[in-house]
């Protein structure tokens, strides 16, 4: 079997990535079909919504025909699939833009928020976990235990409000919770859509500081709420590795503590990776609350608006993009997981 032989001659990480990529295609297809069906359950007649209450039955019929809503479900589904493959997610009658354009405009805002929040969450969770395991009974251990207990009980929208109250209203350290950048400052030219990165590229200091300071409160909110769960998982996993035979052996051989911690952490990594991916996937939906409070103008707020307006195309588009995002995150996590654990056969 020459094909199998070539396959096994490929480097391990290439095999891991190719296998994962191959699985994404059927998964995406399934997601697209289910999304289509689910959105059709929503009430409200889009044709009547677009034309308003005074539309005649004839004009509604004409628009339905134009939108293809008079066709049978399988025909509509087929049309939808073909359109999606051509990158056409339909028009949003409320923003009068193509849905793809709308989503592309708003995605960077949400991704920037989630991205920084996840970096902070992972760093905080892993540090807390490592310190509390290495020094049991120490201050960090006690704080981590209390925090781990309470963290799961705090609603994110409430934390956001408390942060706004203390850091903006009382102390005046943080900027007002209105959007991603000060309204008086020109946003840097769009290259990546990430304001912090774009302003660095443009060399615009004021824009960078404005964008970065606006990120502080929402990022802190998400990190405070989500660090707890990741920390508990990291503690369990790291404790297992840290108390294992090989760590004892390293210690007996006189390996410095720093290196022991590093190799124990390497062994504790796989469950931490998968938990991180779950949280990241979950955040896209959960960020709706945080985005609303900070008037972030991201995907979450767009989805809320779309549901309120019964905007079929926009909801479908959002769900599709959100599911694709979750799929990509899970796939990346799977790839990292297999890279981190060399025992897994590919």
């Amino acid at each position: 079997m020459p094909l199998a032989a070539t396959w096994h001659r490929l480097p391990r990480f290439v095999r891991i990535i190719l296998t994962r990529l191959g699985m994404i295609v059927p998964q995406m297809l399934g997601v697209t079909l289910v999304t289509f069906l689910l959105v059709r359950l929503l009430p409200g007649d889009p044709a009547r919504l677009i034309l308003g209450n005074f539309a005649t039955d004839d004009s509604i019929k004409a628009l339905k025909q134009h939108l293809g809503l008079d066709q049978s479900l399988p025909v509509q589904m087929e049309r939808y699939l073909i359109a999606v493959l051509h990158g056409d997610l339909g028009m949003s009658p409320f923003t009068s833009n193509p849905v793809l354009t709308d989503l592309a405009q708003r995605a960077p805002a949400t991704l920037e928020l989630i991205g920084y929040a996840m970096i902070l969450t992972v760093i905080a969770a892993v540090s807390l976990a490592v310190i509390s395991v290495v020094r049991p009974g120490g201050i960090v251990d006690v704080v981590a235990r209390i925090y781990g207990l309470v963290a799961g009980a705090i609603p994110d929208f409430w934390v956001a409000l408390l942060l706004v109250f203390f850091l903006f209203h009382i102390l005046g350290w943080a900027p007002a919770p209105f959007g991603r950048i000060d309204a008086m400052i020109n946003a840097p030219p769009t290259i990546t859509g990430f304001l912090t990165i774009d302003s660095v590229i443009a060399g615009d200091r004021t824009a960078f500081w404005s964008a970065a300071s606006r990120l502080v409160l929402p990022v802190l909110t998400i990190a405070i709420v989500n660090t707890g769960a990741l920390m508990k998982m990291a503690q369990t996993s790291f404790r297992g590795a840290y108390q294992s035979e090989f760590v004892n052996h390293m210690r007996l051989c006189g390996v410095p503590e720093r290196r022991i911690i590093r190799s124990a952490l390497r062994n504790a990594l796989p469950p931490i990776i998968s938990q991180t991916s779950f949280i990241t996937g979950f955040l896209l939906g959960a960020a709706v609350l945080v985005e609303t409070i900070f008037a972030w103008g991201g995907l979450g707020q767009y989805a809320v608006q779309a549901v309120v307006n019964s905007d079929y195309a926009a909801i479908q588009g959002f769900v599709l993009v959100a599911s694709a995002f979750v799929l990509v995150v899970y796939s990346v996590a799977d790839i990292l997981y297999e890279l981190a654990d060399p025992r897994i056969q590919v």
Partner: protein
Amino acid sequence: MNVAKLSAFLLRRPGALIGLALLLVQIVAILFAPYIASFSPTDADPLSSTLPPGGEHLFGTDELGMDIFSRVVFATRVNLLISFTAVFVSLAIGVPIGVVIGFYRGFLSTVVLRIFDFLQSFPIFVLGMALVAVLGQEIWSVAIVLTLLFVPMFARLVRAEVLSQRERPFIAAARCAGANDLQIMFQHILPNAMTPVIVQISIAIGMAILLTAGLSFIGAGVRMPSPEWGLMVSNGAQQMILGVWWIALFPGIAIVLSVLCFALLADALRDLTDPRLQGDRRARTA
């Protein structure tokens, strides 16, 4: 387990005691709300709008002049009613599904599992808003959204347990003794698969309280003037920037304490039902 053993168990765990105390507070609030609250939870009084805490109004009043303390107390009924309903309905639907798809592992079971995958990977708040849009903004719509989320959770949990139980010798013994599939599933496997479910019930109630509050906060849940914690926080959200902290603070504390209560009870139940951890305190933290 007898009473003496149970009280010894509780004394060794301050967390469980706090959880029980919080549960008691909530039960009292639910049963005696009209006697505890000095004002009606839904009566607006424009003359006493946005009063700070103290005096006649223990937690102050909101923009419409409603007494926040009375609303927090009455909201216990609404929040726990929604959460308990959602969790126990999900339990009644999810557990049998879990048993069946764990026991028969054919094509249909795989399809059901994939549907659950999709439901669980869907952004919860968008799903919530979409369904509340379909069903109308009623208390029961929120419960249905939560049910849709929890049914897969319970079914998965039970399925995982069933998968490990069905290969055990006592199942083969039951079959030899002439038990049919239904008897094996529900009389022999299910009782042995319920332990993690009992712990999960408490965790799910906590999740349900948080999600109900979140849905109400974005306007996809309970409507004014019903007293509901998330809705009350949402009412205070605009004022918080201006420094009016009491409208959002107190209902938020109520959410935290209520969720914490069920998390602590879940921890205690886990220890109580895990025979490996009996009387071994160090193992619990490991």
